[in-house]
């Protein structure tokens, strides 16, 4: 077994473990933390595939921003999981049957037979001067410029939607007008009065 294979199996094992924990632990914050671990190990797997840009971006965006906000929300919720577990035992048999079916079909479809190493040979590793970031940039701004732009529009729609759904203009709230505050000059606030000294009585 080469060093890379050892790394792969180690990270893959952690990933599967973390993913399993995400859905089985009772504490929502712990689940979110295992999700962070899952993201981190999948980033490590991408690194093994020489996709360093994607790997680092995964950490930057998902671990560094998305999951932080997620934790932010989860921590503030007082989650009571008991009602969610109602009927768990009742639906369990059906759930197990469906899950087993899906696993069986998936194993047949995406197993060694179709996507094994014989069908999908190992790609030739690139030299040290190969920059994954540069190659991705070139592709995104040339061949895939149209999908890339649409993805940008989707993000814009998401922003518009989020603002439209959450921005509430309430009457009677007090807010600061920073521009006005900054524009204040001394003369607006202080009046210097010239007056003669008074005689002590």
């Amino acid at each position, binding site marked *: 077994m080469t060093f890379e294979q050892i790394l792969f199996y180690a990270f893959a094992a952690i990933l599967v473990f973390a993913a399993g924990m995400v859905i089985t632990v009772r504490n929502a914050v712990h689940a979110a933390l295992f999700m962070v671990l899952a993201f981190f190990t999948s980033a490590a797997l991408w690194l093994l595939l020489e996709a360093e840009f994607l790997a680092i971006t995964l950490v930057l965006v998902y671990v560094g921003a998305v999951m932080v906000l997620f934790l932010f929300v989860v921590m503030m919720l007082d989650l009571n999981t008991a009602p969610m577990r109602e009927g768990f035992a009742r639906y369990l048999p059906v759930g197990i049957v469906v899950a087993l079916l899906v696993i069986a079909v998936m194993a047949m479809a*995406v197993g060694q037979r179709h996507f094994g190493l014989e069908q999908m040979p190992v790609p030739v590793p690139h030299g040290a001067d190969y920059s994954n970031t540069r190659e991705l940039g070139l592709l995104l701004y040339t061949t895939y410029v149209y999908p890339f732009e649409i993805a940008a529009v989707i993000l814009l729609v998401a922003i518009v*939607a989020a603002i439209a759904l959450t921005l509430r203009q309430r009457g009677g709230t007090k807010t600061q007008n920073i521009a006005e505050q900054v524009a204040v000059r001394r003369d607006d606030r202080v009046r210097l009065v010239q007056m003669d000294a008074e005689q002590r009585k």
Partner: protein
Amino acid sequence: MNFVMPDFMPALPEMFLLGMVCFILLLDLFLSERSRVVTYLLAQSTLLGALLLTVSLYEEGRALTFSDTFVHDPMGSVLKVFIYLATFLVFLYAKDYLRARNMFKGEFYVLGLFGVLGMNVLVSAHSLLTIYLGLELLSLSMYAMVALQRDSVQASEAAMKYFVLGAMASAMLLYGMSMLYGITGSLDLGQINTSTAAMDNNSMLLAFALVFIVIGVAFKLGAVPFHMWLPDVYHGAPTAVTLYLSSAPKLAAFAMMMRLLVDGLGGLQEQWEGMLILLTVLSLAAGNIIAIAQTNLKRMLAYSAISHVGFLLLGVLSGTQAGYAAAMFYAIVYVIMGLGGFGMIVLMSRAGFEADSIEDFKGLNERSPWFALMMLILMFSMAGVPPFLGFWSKLAVIQAALGADLVWLVAVAVVFSVIGAFYYLRVVKVMYFDKADVGAPTVSAGFDLRVVLSANSLAVLGLGLFPGSLLALCVAALA
């Protein structure tokens, strides 16, 4: 790296749309509440401008651009034209409704136009990537529009259901696409078609990918058993948004099905035919039978939409050019009728009164004979009574199915549409033979809404008397 500057001409309408939406988005920030009508007028002129551009490009013929991720063809152009027209009518019908409910905001139009852009992308997609992105752009706009009425519990619930189920359907579709990419090594629909056609037809792997893709498409169309979201969303959303959801996106969903199943997986027609037959039978049965039990008109029309999807699928699954043309004709006709149907609800409603119950149409003949007549035309057409437009569309689809030797399926379709006629006619009965409640309000909608809605209904009659031209257009577009 060899890179040729793409030809921007075929995508001119899309670029115009995007530029205008961004402009409207910015301008709307600076408009006062009273001059909001400027946003509305600009949105409408954007649609008309895009319409002109698309029409002027119609003669260009089929062309691929943007590294083959974008296709310009007659089918796309025709569908885009009807998408613009449908959205134009939606905006027009919705104006007073939105005003009365304090929803007359720039966001409705901006999101609506972004949705149109998404439909355009979807209609002229030639790569799995653009199909998915177009679909997401459209869906995201629609989720937000459903939730736009924040204080309504029903609307929020509908948006939540729509979002969760829609996200799941997208995931299914994406999974199917990723399998397809794994098998063929390409995202390009043309290349996928050539490589799948060359493969062993019984490959389990292809069937696996196909199942997920068909599920994704069926969900977006609202075919049984992936229809659960549809009645709740149609019912819960504000009627103006229901109007939007039920019209143009149906054309886009039809285009998505054509691109994926015919352009991309045409070689697997034998395999997906079976799946579609199942969806068709279930949709016709469930749609028509459950609709009978509804007391809410929006819900009833939602189930009627499900049954219409069954007919639409009937055209596609016959797998011939004539069948595709018939399905396209059916989709366009359904959109025209659906606009009229939901338009009537908007017309009857006013602030604080939704008019979305069948009861609300009691004795409409006494209050407003003209609009009772219009509703009669629409209901007869949906039921498929000759000589209205709906009859011809059903006929075209049935002919196509007969051409593909699917006699038993045609029999099923006819039986269920006869059953379905019952609930359409019940609305007519309520309007003409029931007594109006004391104090039931008369129609008080604006002039433009009255005129255009009348024109819409009369078009169903007029085009029904001369159905040849529209059908010929669809046949020519797919030739």
